[in-house]
């Protein structure tokens, strides 16, 4: 039975609420009604760059104040727009209600002035955002100044976690950029809720006037051929890899800077020290369970394939099987704001798990009898063939004789590697880095140790979102030999 919901359009401080076209994820029974963006293209695009000027009447403190006040209005308990976004996410998201509630309640955190200031400083440098910063010119008598300016940007965001839209809005604000957020069909309301709150709070504020949130079907030529034009936008931030840019690669041209944040998977490496004694093993198991289970394994950073330096002989298998049992127990005991059984266990994954019983000499399945998750322990040094499909709290432990072997298993799609112990992480981090990984973290910390002020996916997307402008000053006449003398030119 389809549940319906309206998705208005927000364009630069104006809410347009005349939904016409239906769209929706067929799997989750939601039907959304959105406005036809094609009817509002003139307003949506910021064709006149001079319209960016109002952002520069704001000081950085003004920006912090605005965001801080906005954050105070984004308490889930008091904000009807967020409540609706939350309600709909409970239907469309793979995250269960208890986890979503936790994430929606965390939204105000991203707007706190200290947090924003930390992000701006860590990701760009406040000095560069606020003014022209002297840089060494390398040349006597020449001074160089650099400043980071905001850009006109379309953001094609991912919808599997609510924080993505929120972060995009905050980053857009402190970089003094203009954002058109294209909503994904798996979360069309969260970014919209923040935008509408901004309008209620301060409809004419420059920061409100430089945010639009819209849904249109990817591939809709009427919208995309108009919008993806260097006259109208300068940057395109696309989450979701090929799925989000498939339709638009033909519009890419010099003048549009494409920043892709591709889907990723993550891996885990556990050293032999885990097996020192029962207490250590149990502690490792809990950390591992957290990295597998948090956010119901919906995030790119979750653990899925876990390489364990247990040894591959009979004794080694006994060790890793024991770790598997403990991890499963810890997984089932995780608190509900962190992790719960998945609401919609993936049917293809279920089919794969069901087939494991026919190869039980090769893979031991712990759990898996219900939809609450499972730990598969490979009985040889290879992950399951369907490792790319691991989700819904299913992890795969793989025995190795040597942790270093795991390094070569990393590929360009490996984002986060959770490692235990920290000494092993230090030892392997350089090799892992050139092998392809983008983030190393102590086991258990893939979520809680994450900082919003660090590079993401191996790049610095917020620096990329800015335009870095150079101003050079000096006496040119001193630098070029053989020029006519000024007197000679003046005399004629």
């Amino acid at each position, binding site marked *: 039975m389809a549940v319906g919901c309206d998705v208005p359009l927000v364009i630069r401080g104006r809410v347009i609420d005349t939904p016409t076209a239906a*769209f*929706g*994820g*067929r*799997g*989750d029974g939601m039907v959304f009604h959105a406005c036809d963006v094609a009817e509002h293209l003139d307003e949506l695009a910021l064709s006149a760059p001079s319209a960016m000027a109002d952002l520069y009447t704001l000081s950085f403190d003004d920006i912090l104040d605005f965001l801080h006040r906005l954050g105070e209005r984004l308490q889930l308990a008091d904000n009807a727009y967020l409540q609706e976004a939350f309600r709909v996410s409970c239907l469309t998201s793979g995250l269960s209600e208890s986890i979503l509630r936790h994430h929606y309640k965390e939204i105000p955190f991203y707007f706190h002035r200290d947090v924003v200031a930390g992000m701006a400083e860590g990701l760009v440098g406040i000095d560069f955002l606020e003014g022209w910063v002297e840089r060494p010119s390398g040349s006597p008598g020449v001074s160089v100044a650099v400043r980071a300016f905001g850009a006109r940007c379309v953001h*094609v*965001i*991912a*919808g*599997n*976690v609510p924080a*993505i839209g929120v972060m995009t809005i905050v980053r857009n604000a402190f970089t003094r950029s203009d954002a058109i957020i294209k909503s*994904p*069909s*798996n979360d069309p309301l969260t970014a919209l809720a923040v935008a509408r709150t901004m309008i209620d709070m301060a409809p004419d504020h420059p920061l409100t006037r430089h945010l639009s949130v819209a*849904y249109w*079907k*990817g591939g809709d030529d009427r919208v995309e051929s108009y919008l993806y034009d260097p006259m109208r936008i300068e940057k395109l931030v696309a*989450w*979701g*890899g*090929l*799925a*989000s840019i498939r339709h638009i690669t033909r519009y890419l041209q010099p003048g549009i800077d494409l920043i892709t*944040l*591709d*889907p*990723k*998977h993550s891996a885990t490496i556990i050293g032999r020290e885990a097996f020192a004694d029962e207490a250590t093993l149990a502690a490792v198991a809990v950390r591992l369970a957290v990295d597998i289970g948090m956010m119901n394994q*919906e*995030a*790119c950073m*979750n653990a899925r394939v876990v390489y364990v330096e247990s040894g591959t002989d009979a004794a080694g298998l006994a060790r890793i099987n024991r770790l598997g049992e403990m991890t499963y127990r810890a997984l089932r005991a995780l608190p509900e704001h962190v992790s719960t059984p998945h609401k919609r266990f993936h049917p*293809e994954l279920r*089919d*794969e798990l*069901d*087939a*494991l*019983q*026919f*190869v039980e000499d*090769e*893979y031991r399945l712990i759990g898996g009898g219900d939809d609450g998750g499972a730990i598969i322990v490979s009985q*040889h040094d*290879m*992950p*399951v*063939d369907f490792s*790319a499909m691991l989700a819904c709290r299913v992890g795969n432990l793989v025995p190795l004789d040597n942790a270093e*072997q795991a390094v*070569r*298993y*990393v*590929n360009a*799609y*490996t984002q986060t590697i959770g490692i235990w112990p920290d000494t092993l992480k230090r030892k392997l981090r350089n090799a892992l880095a050139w*092998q*392809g990984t983008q983030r190393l973290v102590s086991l258990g910390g893939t979520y809680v140790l994450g900082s919003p002020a660090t590079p993401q996916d191996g790049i610095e997307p917020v620096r990329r979102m800015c335009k870095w402008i150079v101003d050079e000053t000096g006496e040119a006449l001193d630098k070029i030999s053989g020029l006519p003398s000024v007197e000679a030119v003046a005399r004629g």
Partner: protein
Amino acid sequence: MTEIFSLLRESPQALYGMRFHQGFELSVAQLQEIHLTGARRRFDTLRTSIRALDKLAAEQGISRIDTLDDLVPLLFKHTVYKSYPISFLERGRFDALTRWLDGLTTLDLSGVDTAGVQTIDDWIDCLDTQTELRIAHSSGTSGKLSVIPRTREHWFNQVRLTAGCVRDWHGPDSGPDLFSTPMPFIRLSERYGASVQHRSANALVEMIAGSEDNTLFLFPTERYSADMASLGGRLRAAAARGEQGRLELSPVLMARREEFARRNAQRPKAMERFFADARERFGGRDVLIQAIWVNLLEPAEEARKQGLKGLFGPRSALLTGGGLKGQTAAPDWRERITEFLGTDNYYEFYGMTEMLSNAPACRQGNYHVSPVTVPFLIDGESGEVLPRNGTQSGRFAFFDLLPESYWGGFVTGDLVTMGGWDDVCPCGRVGPYVHADIRRFSDIEGGDDKIDCAGAPEAHDRAMEYLVNSSGGH
């Protein structure tokens, strides 16, 4: 009539010797009795001699079949016949692969000697030489090859069913009797191979064409390689294991890839030769052609360009099926094909690697389920069995009563609509039928514009996929 009913109830394999059209004159009640009796007998016999079935039954707590729906938890998911680890192939563990297969068949494979086997093709040859098995593998476009443990006899029996269909489908003796006169056999593919289509082609050559001279193949001396078919899946699995994965890919396999690419480059020339041979040796004659629709699109276009029409005689028969598989084609694509072939006498089947008795389509476009196939529809959301009445849509699953050496129960990936339990198809045939519009669940799941940041983009060996898909190997 009652005679046919008792014969089939006693032994579903009596279908092999029957008048094909009579299977569609039984009442639904009679069919259900044939189904229940047959299923019970199969379960009771096979449970103790197929390890995989015994395991599943124990796990599900099922020790007897009282009603047809009792079968449902015992139907194998598509993953069962491909549950072997790919590492068996990469590491040459063909002994372990044989042991895995042993658990899925009544045949005893414990004596099979796999010494020297380096590739899947070698392994298939090894089984062909040392046992009664003539396994069929899937095309591998989904990544991993399934292996179905059919026997030599299955293929010949299937030909008897096919011949019966061609002869009696539009009424008794309405079509040619393929057994009475050897008919030339035409196929746009390699002559050899172990996919379902290649295995059945081999049986058709022996039983219908009668000799190699009476055949025409696109690549008459070549084999459709299981290693090539498996390559896409193996490359993906390797990519998931980074540099190490790439290192462990079998060099023999990679050498074969080059060979395969070379063969494919010769395709246009082979096609030219094929047309010339077809005209010269079999032009205007009644022939038997086996090809799924998509493999005829390109030749039809070629023929059009050359102004070629009516290549073969009007009483030729085309064994086909499979729809367009997502490809785009001109709206009159079927007409273009029949025009170039010279016959519109086609027999279109709904079937799959796992099904012995495929379902032929009537002139309404409905596929009539064989009387010895027990159909089930499973609700896509809840997993519950849908009632056998009215018109229902859901996931197609079935129990095939014919095989006695492997378990005939399968759940497919197809979303279908069925009728025929309490209505009769306008064509007049009685019994359950599947509507023409068949879709894959995998194409439907996931809404528009769902963007996630978690995922592993699949390593696409685009060249390989193109080669495998266009090889005519299906």
